[in-house]
């Protein structure tokens, strides 16, 4: 586009501002609901035959009474604190396991030439094409029926960690490839074993990539909803996503709890996302072109 001729045209700002308002309206709506201190899905109670202004008040995302009651109640009266803790445990363990598995495999793929290397990497790539629903039933049978790990955090953790492996391995391998091999060779001449080289030299050098991988694993587990709802039967073992749906799914409508819980769950993810989005975009588009 020929840029620059009319700088900052008023109509463009007006259009953008109204579109942005529409875009962030749902976010404001959830915030208003969260701070409203009540459970109904409407922000204010409307009279029987509301006037235009009363209806307008009904859609303005500002609660009738500002209160933190929903936040306090959802953490104390409802088992949401427990669910949040479950999610933290599951996501934390997933991150540890996922990063360990991905780092070792990526290192081998990056540094060693061995029979089956290319096939292995291709297999990792192809596995990304397997549809989720096809995997869901066998995973349910394997984890719940055979291994008896239904309703158990370990079942979720190992599934999350393995499903995150291919992406993490490809990403880490790319980073390991950029670390000069001379460093390792000089260490080997000094008599360092492969384990020492890997843990003492490579891992510290790859810290930024490992951090991204860890965050990716964490967010995979933190936002996952379907497997968790299939595996976790008892209410005490729900993760936060399953719990949030529990508030407003089916016939229950505790929208206040849902809104407060959503804010708590989303906040860390949104902050991380804003911080990391430039890596995500470059990774996604780079991966799909080549």
């Amino acid at each position: 586009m020929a840029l620059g001729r009319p700088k900052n045209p008023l109509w463009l700002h007006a259009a953008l501002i109204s579109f942005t308002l529409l875009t962030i309206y749902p976010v404001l709506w959830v915030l208003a609901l969260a701070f409203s201190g009540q459970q109904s899905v409407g922000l204010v109670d409307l009279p029987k035959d509301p006037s235009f202004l009363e209806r307008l008040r009904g859609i303005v995302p500002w609660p009738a009474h500002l209160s933190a009651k929903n936040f306090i109640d959802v953490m104390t009266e409802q088992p949401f604190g427990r669910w949040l803790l479950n999610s933290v445990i599951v996501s934390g363990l997933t991150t540890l396991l996922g990063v360990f598995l991905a780092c070792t495999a990526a290192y081998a793929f990056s540094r060693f030439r061995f029979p089956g290397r290319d096939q292995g990497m291709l297999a990792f790539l192809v596995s990304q094409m397997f549809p989720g629903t096809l995997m869901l039933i066998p995973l349910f049978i394997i984890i719940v029926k055979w291994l008896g790990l239904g309703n158990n955090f370990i079942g979720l953790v190992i599934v999350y960690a393995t499903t995150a492996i291919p992406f993490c391995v490809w990403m880490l391998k790319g980073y390991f490839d950029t670390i000069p091999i001379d460093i390792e060779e000089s260490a080997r001449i000094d008599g360092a074993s492969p384990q020492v080289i890997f843990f003492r030299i490579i891992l510290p050098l790859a810290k930024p990539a490992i951090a991204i991988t860890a965050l990716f694993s964490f967010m995979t587990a933190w936002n996952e909803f379907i497997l968790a709802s299939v595996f976790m039967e008892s209410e005490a073992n729900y993760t936060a996503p399953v719990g949030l749906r529990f508030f407003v799914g089916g016939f229950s409508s505790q929208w206040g709890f849902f809104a407060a819980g959503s804010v708590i769950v989303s906040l860390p993810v949104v902050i991380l996302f804003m911080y990391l989005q430039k890596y995500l975009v470059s990774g996604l588009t780079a991966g799909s072109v080549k």
Partner: protein
Amino acid sequence: MDWLKRTASLGLGVALAVVLLLSGWLAGGVAGDLAAEQRQREAVLLANAVSASLVGADEAAKAQRLAKWKAEQPGLESARLVVGREMQASTIAADEAPRALKREEKPLFDLANDLRAAAETNVGEGTTRKRTLRVEGSGRDSAMTVSVPLMVEGKVEGIVQARVRASGESASPGAGWALALALVAAGLVVGAFLRIKAERHFDVPRGIAVVLLLVGAVVFQQQQLRRMAEATATSDAAVAKLQAAAAATYARSGAPALAALPAEAGSPWDTDGYGRPRGLVDVDGRPLAKANLAAASHASFLKKSFWAIGALGLALLLFFVQGWAARTAQALKDHRVAYAYVAPAMIGMLVLVFFPFFYGIALAFTDTTLFNENLPFRERFIGLTNFFNILGDFDIVKTTAEGTVVNYQNFYWTLMVTVIWTVTNVTVGVTFGFLLALALNTEGFKGKTIYRVLLILPWAIPNYITALVWRGMFHPQFGVINQALQMFGFEPVRWFDGVVSSFMTGLVTNGWLSFPFMMVVILGALQSIPRDMYEAADVEGATRWQQFRSITLPLLRPTLVPAVVISVVWTFNMFNIIFLVSGGEPGGANEILVTKAYKIAFEQYQYAYAAAYSTVIFVILLVYGYFQTRVTRATESY
């Protein structure tokens, strides 16, 4: 250990061991099934015979006859007669028959009604569509309970429930492990004398090893098949013996003599689950010429499997004698550090990604549901039936007297909805993303960063939360969207009741969360276009539209095409939005393929059907992926 590499000993031993072990294990399983079927046949025969002897007797006579059966047939543990709401007779003293059924015996009453309904349907239709007898427990248990209707002149009077102990005469062939062990040992010994020359591709010793393997396999498998045939004969003989004994008891019980039947019809007591005579023995227990079909199907299954096992053994033998095994072992040894590093992730992927994938595809060829998942795989195998049912069902639109009805459960309807869903969503995402990116790319535009951060928000929020939030906003009674509509004088819309309005809820939600991705991608691409190109175009006197067509669009293509490709796959698989916003309402009309597969699996518990459904989805994605790579390549060369 070097001689191991130079002889066929290890290969022949391992291949033989695997072949014999698998064959024996499979034959053992089939023999167990045969024995279980025999026990079930015996139990059904006795129950039918007891039931037949009660026809036309009064209550006292019925009780007497039941007692007679109990006394004369050692296999019969107990027998009861339930007529309507009454337990008329029973051989169990604690039952205190005759009396009315108790409240907790409601299942017995229901069972009687079910069997009556089934038998009457069969009589009414002149077919055998419904099962008229119920078997509880299997032939593997120590006893099983069989309930059959008491038929009097084509009418069902009540049911007879017989509990029958497994007779000791079941035929269970030994697995023949002694022969197997001897064969494997022989293979190891003879193999040691077969020298393999590594430099040749194939030579006489290798040929001898192959022949030896095949001979060993055939000897063992023939022995298993012979044992099977013997077991079938034994089991037929046991049933015939029981039939003779039952006929004798029947004659002594005081029941009227059996009506003369054509000799080839067989005993009316030895029936399958639909009450049809099997025609294997006549009333007096003499075997008839007809072949035992159930046993024959087992035998043919076993034969087919033996071929497959033989092929597996052959592959294994070649793996060893051709030196591949030695090479693999050497590679493992040479690269042990690398393999040690890869192993944890590889094992995890094999167990939790690749195995489930192939297991899911295998499941698609069975009729597994929640209720029969414990049956052995070969009993659930039904071939391509699921795929025919999914893809061969063209009953999309039905025209009835009341008008035209669309069958929302049909695969092609769901496929159509999915395609429309994908196309509209990607169009919405790309359009809004494009417009916003162009606006934000205006040079010297103030507040760019603020807009960008705010507009990217929908992408940052977990999408299940987004979905639930929009579900709340679309609430038909209190949702803000209907409030806003009413504010301007419109009628509120019952969003989830109409096919189109319900589709719109998904489209709006998904459009809202997908445009930021497009915006960010396009904005990045726009910013990488060098400014001098536009300046040069300005100098040449090109209009803005011309500049857009000849500079912006072509330079955007390499970024835009992959972004569209990836968002097509995302949208196609967007489970959360459909599942959580509209739930596919109304009546499953707005289900997309992935949510439909989920519901088939976890709400209807049709695991196999859902697996077949998912396999079809996978094939669709594969085809799409194939064309997508071709298109992407074309873009790159552009």
